């Protein structure tokens, strides 16, 4: 038995490639599209970003114990800094600098890749310990500068003591003294605030250091802007804490910035060190090329109606399955040609392809083919209702560009979350192409293999595409393939 869908697919491919305008639109236009975006975004652009910046803080800080007034207190500078970030506002304004998302590090990493957040701050385990070292060192330096090296050489002093206690610096001979808490640091200070007494106990110096990690996609201008603000906020926080400690400990001693106990380190997502916005966009552009099929397929289907060739097919013994599967098969082959071609062109134009050789390409093809199927489903829906070829083309264009934007082809849109059945969804997630773009970006730009997240994205893509396809096939069959009522 002849497999008619092969004949239909073969016919559709011949028609497509013999139609020069269609061929241009399908294969050459996306290349121009990519070239234009490479020119516009390939070298990176700077924007001021939109406030507040979406960030996530993952706080692994275990805190530190502070003994004051014979009581042990637990302080956590990581928590304190998180609160500072949460409350930080633009100068002379109530506009918040950051919007914090409370998710795990793993989730945050995925969100970074999908640009749902702009930066991820990881506060290390010994953050408070390092902070205490810094504060002690600051206070010690301030006191030293006041009393002089000679006074200090005498060792133990009398009743008025200055001590900063921590698990790292605690000494057994400390005496009680009034204490103040300064941004989490407990500082025993001279209560009078006058000239230093003779007997002074210096806080013990320690050299605990830590690194505050700020992670993000270095090809994303919003990350660059967010990390600048994070650095400024952190420097300010450190200075405030140290300055207050010094003020309390040395009663008016001036604070000078010391060696940085907690440097801030920018960590680009793996492979994004030399990324530009173009690298972010390429997977989206590939999906746009696949989405362009919507106009072409719907126009070709409506052309069959207008020219009466669909009636010829309806009069023949071809089944709806052959007709629709044949159409799908033809355009799938086009997609299979398109995806590697566009990756190659983009790479030639400076795209940082991070795919791991063949498997990434295969995965990209699978994603592309399913996205193509979703496009064909959309085309069938359009062809079910369009009155003529021009209307199909117009409808296709009208739908495709907003879908590309909403799917995050160019930039991530602010999340529009809806709650359903106790679960939250982003409204864009109902579009299969959103998942296609996200999965393709993970595979091609961030070099992710078949990770759990990709599997989830592809599963959503398949489910949504299947729903769309069933709706479209039923709709098209009822409206176009049955005898007219």
């Amino acid at each position, binding site marked *: *038995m*002849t497999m*008619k869908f092969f*004949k239909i697919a073969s*016919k559709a491919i*011949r*028609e497509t490639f*013999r*139609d020069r305008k269609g061929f241009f639109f399908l294969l050459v236009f996306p290349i121009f599209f990519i070239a234009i975006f490479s020119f516009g975004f390939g070298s990176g652009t700077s924007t001021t970003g939109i406030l507040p910046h979406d960030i996530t803080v993952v706080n692994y800080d275990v805190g530190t114990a502070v003994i004051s007034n014979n009581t042990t207190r637990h302080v956590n500078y990581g928590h304190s800094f998180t609160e500072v970030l949460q409350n930080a506002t633009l100068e002379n304004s109530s506009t918040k600098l950051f919007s914090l998302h409370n998710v795990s590090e793993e989730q945050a990493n995925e969100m970074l890749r999908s640009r749902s957040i702009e930066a991820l701050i990881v506060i290390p385990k010994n953050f408070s310990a390092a902070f205490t070292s810094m504060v002690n060192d600051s206070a010690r330096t301030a006191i030293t500068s006041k009393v002089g090296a000679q006074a200090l050489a005498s060792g133990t002093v009398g009743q008025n003591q200055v001590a900063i206690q921590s698990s790292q610096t605690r000494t057994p001979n400390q005496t009680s003294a009034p204490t103040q808490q300064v941004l989490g640091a407990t500082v025993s200070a001279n209560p009078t605030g006058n000239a230093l007494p003779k007997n002074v106990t210096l806080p013990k110096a320690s050299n605990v250091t830590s690194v505050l990690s700020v992670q993000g996609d270095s090809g994303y201008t919003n990350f660059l802007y967010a990390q600048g603000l994070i650095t400024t906020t952190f420097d300010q926080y450190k200075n405030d804490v140290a300055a207050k400690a010094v003020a309390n400990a040395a009663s008016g001693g001036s604070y000078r910035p010391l060696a940085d106990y907690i440097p801030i380190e920018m960590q680009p997502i793996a492979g994004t060190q030399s990324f530009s916005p173009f690298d972010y966009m390429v997977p989206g552009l590939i999906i746009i090329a696949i989405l362009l099929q919507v106009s072409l397929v719907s126009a070709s289907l409506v052309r069959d109606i207008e*020219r*009466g*060739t669909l*009636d*010829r*097919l*309806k*009069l*023949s*013994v*071809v089944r709806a399955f052959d007709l629709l599967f044949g159409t799908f098969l033809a355009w799938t082959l086009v997609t299979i040609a398109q995806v590697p071609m566009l990756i190659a062109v983009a790479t030639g134009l400076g795209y940082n392809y991070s795919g791991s050789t063949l498997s990434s390409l295969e995965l990209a093809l699978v994603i592309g083919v399913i996205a193509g199927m979703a496009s064909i489903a959309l085309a069938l829906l359009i062809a079910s209702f369009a009155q003529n070829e021009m209307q199909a083309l117009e409808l296709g264009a009208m739908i495709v560009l907003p879908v590309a934007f909403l799917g995050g082809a160019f930039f991530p849109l602010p999340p529009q979350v809806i709650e359903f059945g106790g679960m939250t969804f982003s409204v864009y997630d109902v579009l299969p192409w959103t998942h296609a773009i996200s999965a393709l970006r993970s595979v091609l730009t961030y070099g992710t293999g078949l990770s759990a997240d990709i599997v989830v994205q592809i599963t959503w893509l398949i489910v949504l595409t299947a729903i769309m396809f069933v709706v479209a096939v039923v709709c098209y069959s009822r409206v176009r393939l049955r*005898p*007219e*009522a």
Partner: protein
Amino acid sequence: MDKYALKTQNLTKTIGNLLVVDNLNLEIRRREIFGFLGPNGAGKTTSIKMMVGLLNPTSGRVLFDGAKLGSAHKRRIGVCPQDLSMWDALTCRENLTFMGDMYGIPAPRLEARVNKLLDLLALTEKADQTAAKLSGGVKRRLNIALSLVHDPEIVFLDEPSAGLDPQSRLLLWEFIRSLRDEEDKTIVLTTHGMEEADALSDRIAIIDHGKLLRLDTPDGLKQTLGKGDVVELQLVNSAMNAKALALMRSVRGIEEAYELNGKIVVRALDATSKLPHIIRRIERAGAGVSDVSVRRNSLEDVFVSLTGRALRE
């Protein structure tokens, strides 16, 4: 096997409030060319669409070979639509082969059938040209070939010769006759060309406003409807014209008699059968007839007399 290839029984179609086809009853015989005529908007295309299964009737039914029309009959019906319907990007041969594939014709048989049709419709030279590049006449011939590639028993040809030059039209007429005579096909022919319908049809149905007005052979229609045949008589002695005219006007069945340019002009239905009687009467009156010419009643006259002169669409 039923005597009739196709029958319609009380076939009716209403679209909105408009009655497009009104209780149409037709019986189309096997191996006949059945002319299906009517003015624009008379309901021909709607009727054909129902007869081939593209449109569901509001009521009534279509019987194919005695059985209710269904998908099982698809291979036995061919339809050549009025508008050119083909895949422009495919060549003539590809169009035909693709259409044959859609009917599931085995490759060797299909190849032979395609070659035969290309040959019969003088398309062989254009076989490898894409349809988009063909002239109107060649496209028209390809349009017909596409409806025949699966070798159907009954073929609906809707305006098959529209836009054809005289040579192509003659070729097409021969081809249509050969379909009946050599391939035993039944042909339903819709045309606005009365000459074509007259020349090709075994029987003709004329419909208007969705109703069947008359169904008969072309001769039958012409003998009973329209203005009639026109007979011109030249008398030996034109001075006898007035007397002869008076005689003619008294003959039963003569619609009109008048003198024009020295000749007597007589108009009557089926005048040829009345002609011997007319000549006898004139000769008995003492006038000799020197010349006789007859212009037959045309199908167009019949058509106009049935459907009127008012424009439709």
